[in-house]
């Protein structure tokens, strides 16, 4: 079974937020909310500080705590690619999944259900890339099946140093950042 993952090259990302705008447009994300966002992290001391710009979103974890805590089964792992999704018709808006997510990647949609990044599964199942990946002007975002050794993402992860977010949380994120 495919394991879909996203690889983002922080050496190329300039934080233009095109990915954010594309996501909001593609997924009709309500005003004041976002499914993906830009983070700038500065570490170190002058004169050698290090700046990393990241496009962040739901990490579609291997062991998603948001799925295990859902009382209705609304939060689930999709059959294709292991993508973590929310079935809006089953969601009661209890917010347990928001409390369970160490990345704070979910929010309550004004309609009442919980919402988050879907890796644009509706596009991916048609053979297209997620909206954010497709519009990136620096081509810093890559998407594909990490289980396929010939895929672009698998090759990048083999050849470049990378990290994921909050590895100590033990959730197994599937969004990777090349450094």
């Amino acid at each position, binding site marked *: 079974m495919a394991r879909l993952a996203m690889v983002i090259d922080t050496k190329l990302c300039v934080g233009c937020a095109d990915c954010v705008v594309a996501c909001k447009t593609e997924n009709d994300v309500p005003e*004041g909310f976002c499914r993906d966002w830009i983070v700038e992290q500065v570490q170190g001391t002058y004169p050698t*500080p290090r700046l990393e710009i990241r496009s962040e979103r739901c990490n579609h974890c291997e062991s998603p705590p948001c799925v295990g805590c859902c009382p209705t089964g609304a939060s689930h792992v999709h059959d294709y690619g292991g993508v973590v999704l929310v079935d809006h018709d089953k969601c009661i808006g209890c917010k*347990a999944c928001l409390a369970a997510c160490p990345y704070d990647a979910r929010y309550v949609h004004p309609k009442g259900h919980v919402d988050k990044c879907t890796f644009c599964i509706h596009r991916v199942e048609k053979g297209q890339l997620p909206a954010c990946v497709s519009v990136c002007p620096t081509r810093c975002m890559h998407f594909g099946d990490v289980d396929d050794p010939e895929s672009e993402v698998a090759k990048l992860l083999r050849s470049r140093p990378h990290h994921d977010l909050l590895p100590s949380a033990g959730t197994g994120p599937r969004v990777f950042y090349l450094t």
Partner: protein
Amino acid sequence: MDEITSTRHNPGLDPAMHIWGWEIPVYLFLGGLVAGLMVLAGYHILKARGQQERAAYPYAPMLGIILLSLGMNALFLDLANKINVWRLYLTFEPTSPMSWGSWILMLVYPALIAAAVLHPPERVPFGNRLLALVRTWSAWMQARPRLVQGIGIANLAGGIALGIYTGILLGAFGARPLWNSAILGPLFLFSGLSTAAALMHLLSMISQKGGASFADATLAGVFRLLNPDRGGHVMVRADASFLTIELGIIILWLIGLLTATAVHHQAAALLLGGPYTAAFWGGVIIAGILVPLVLQYLELAGRIRHTAIPAILVLIGGFVLRLVLVSAGQASHWS
């Protein structure tokens, strides 16, 4: 330096998570209180097998039904997608404490109703005609000792499950280090027991009928430990040291946080010098546990007059515990 700037400003999440307001603490408080009432009622039903007059808690199950319904209403108000609430009962998700809780809530109602029918109160403000009917059912049930025993066990087990679940509900969220401890289950159970004992004491003061003295129920065990000759009734002693045990569990919980990882230290700091320090130490530890214990000791020693103040303080402390835990837990995070 390690500075993070984010463009995310999602309501309820940024700058700090605040997804649960007053509704969840109210639900957790009332759920724990009802759990305690069920344990007390179940214990006394079993203890008074064949001796109805010894089961001095006729109001506990009835009160439990009312309070649990109020708590579930608070929970319902918190749901963002209320129209889908029925979905809870189309599935059972074994890894979800909330799913366990929704089914436990459905199972405790029959136990509470059976206990209420088993020992109906002598009089009620209204519905005396219905009370007469209930008494005929009560007589039928009491003629069947095995049924009575079953109701007692169901209340005892249901109360323990409900009390522990309210703590596990929070303890299962690994992403919130302050909550992420299985000890919250026993903590909420014993806090529920202490608040239930306090409420029973208040009721017994109001009704002037039966009910173990709250002072007895909270300190007899300690007396028994200090001086076996002065100890209270063995059965009361079992109920007795809820507050003391609760305090011990809180200390263990804090030790657990302080001996864990950096994120757990940061979480503990919210209560140890951080923004929730005054509410936690002032409202929960001092006003909710230590002051009632001292007052009860002085009452039992005959040095001050017996009043309802300790019971009221315990009830307030029990609510503040949930309020502080729910708020501070949301403020604790991994990053």
